[in-house]
């Protein structure tokens, strides 16, 4: 049996959560004060995911030299740096609109990276 210690992000309380696991499965969650903590802990220990945001260079725009981007959905936490490395070679051409895909299937996650800023 394995125990994972987490800090709940549900509210400012920041409960210290203790998750007991066996064979990758959650046996119990303790330390939480509410249901939110339980849900967070189970997700965080089995499939932690994050949205990654960054910027990429844009050419042909009068106003911008870089535009901000994000993963369209959260991606596995352990893919964050792979995602960043993939973005290293991305360059886009104006015009770019919010929501435009700048990189498909980043780090093999099946998730696209999309623009969060407009560059005309």
């Amino acid at each position: 049996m394995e125990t994972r210690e987490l800090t709940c992000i549900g509210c400012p309380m920041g409960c210290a959560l203790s998750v007991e696991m066996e064979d990758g499965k959650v046996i119990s969650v303790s330390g939480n004060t509410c249901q939110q903590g339980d849900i967070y802990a189970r997700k965080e220990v089995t499939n932690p995911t994050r949205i990654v945001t960054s910027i990429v260079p844009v050419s042909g725009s009068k106003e911008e030299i870089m535009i901000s981007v994000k993963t369209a959905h959260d991606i596995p936490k352990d893919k964050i740096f792979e995602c960043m490395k993939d973005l290293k070679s991305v360059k886009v051409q104006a015009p770019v609109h919010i929501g435009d895909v700048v990189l498909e299937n980043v780090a093999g996650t099946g998730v696209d990276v999309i623009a969060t800023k407009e560059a005309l």
Partner: protein
Amino acid sequence: MYDVIIIGAGVSGSAIARECSRYPLKIAVLEKCEDVCCGTSKANSAIIHAGYDAKEGTLMAKLNVEGNAMMDELAKDLDIPFKRIGSFVVCTDEENRDGLTTLYNRGVTNGVPGLRIVERDELKEMEPNISDEAVAALYAPSAGIVCPFELNLAMAENAAENGVEFYFDSPVEEIKKIEDHYEIHTPKGIFNTKYVINAAGVYADTIHNMVSEDKMEIIPRKGEYYLLDKSAGKHVAHTIFQLPTKMGKGVLVTPTVHGNMLVGPTSMDIEDKEGVNTTRKGLDEVAMKSSMAVKNLPMRDVITSFAGLRAHHPDHEFIIEEVKDAPNFIDVAGIESPGLSSCPAIGVMVAKMIQEKTGSVEKPDFKKTRKGLIKPSEMTLEERNELIKKDPRYGTIICRCEMVTEGEIVETLHRVIPARSLDGVKRRTRAGMGRCQAGFCSPRVMEILSNEVSDIDMYNVSKSGGHSNFIVGNDKEDL
């Protein structure tokens, strides 16, 4: 072959350069830093002392009083701010009153005009925030305040306009005496000159010792300061000193010409000639002593702190003389307080020595005036709009706190002695000197520098030259 080489572009070197530029001589100034006013001249109390402090009969006393008297005309000629706001030395203990009399008598002997002892009631009226402990004060109406950087820069620019060459990033590494002249080695090349003037501040000993067997020592004496926001700028209207007590010397509290309030300095002899770091102990001492002569000083309005080094000579006297075993090599050493006040007179004194040696006659085309930066903030609405119509960059504010426009910043980059760093721009325009301390404007100023100056880009734009660059690379390059 140069006639005169001046080592150091601080207030002494620049005053000497300007005064020497009256004569048809080939003159250069060698400065180890990237700009004028990078050493002692930069970080001090920014006051023009009346002259009652220095011992009777000393060169310090003489040059202080002379320098002070020259300041009105100089400020007018050079288009720089100078305010004769007067000073008080405050006595907070009846027992020490003799100290005031001593200072008064010394001042009278030194030739300080208008001195008088002011009693408590009058003092309170003239300066309502004076300490409740105050019993009397020595009032010196001729004391004033100046922006040391603008004074320094203005003298240097005026010298440059009159033909003096300035070489920056040029530390002197070696000086060789060659028959009738000197050979000065710097990383930028070798300079040959008939006369050398050593105005190297805390390094005056190093330079002196390159040519003389009679070794000199200059001790860097650190002074730490707090600068308060303009919101506190009217707390006192005069420069307030404390009469030294058994508890030691106090700190001064003074308005600055730009409307801030300055408190300090401490006094600590150190070894490192570049040791301009502030210390917890020093800053705490300033805070503690700030209340000795002035009450309710709002220390929460501090926007920055800094330290400067005085170039202290063990004799506590200005050493301005030809070095005995090095003919035509003139020391201008030990220029500590009241050096800023004395610098115009130091310039005249040294130029006279050079004039006598060379037998030069003043150039008919010497131009004694210099025009400062265009100052939109001092213009009327109509004048300002006229200016913006001519150059729209004067309509774009870059520094929000001090309301400095793009036009002013660009102008500093193209003057006779151009700014080449953010500190250079800051000292010339005040961009970044306000309450946000360059948080908002530094990226903008960096962009302007990299756009306007051919050999500066975003990667080498610096705070103050050398390796003080802001940007170390690009996003993701290390991934």
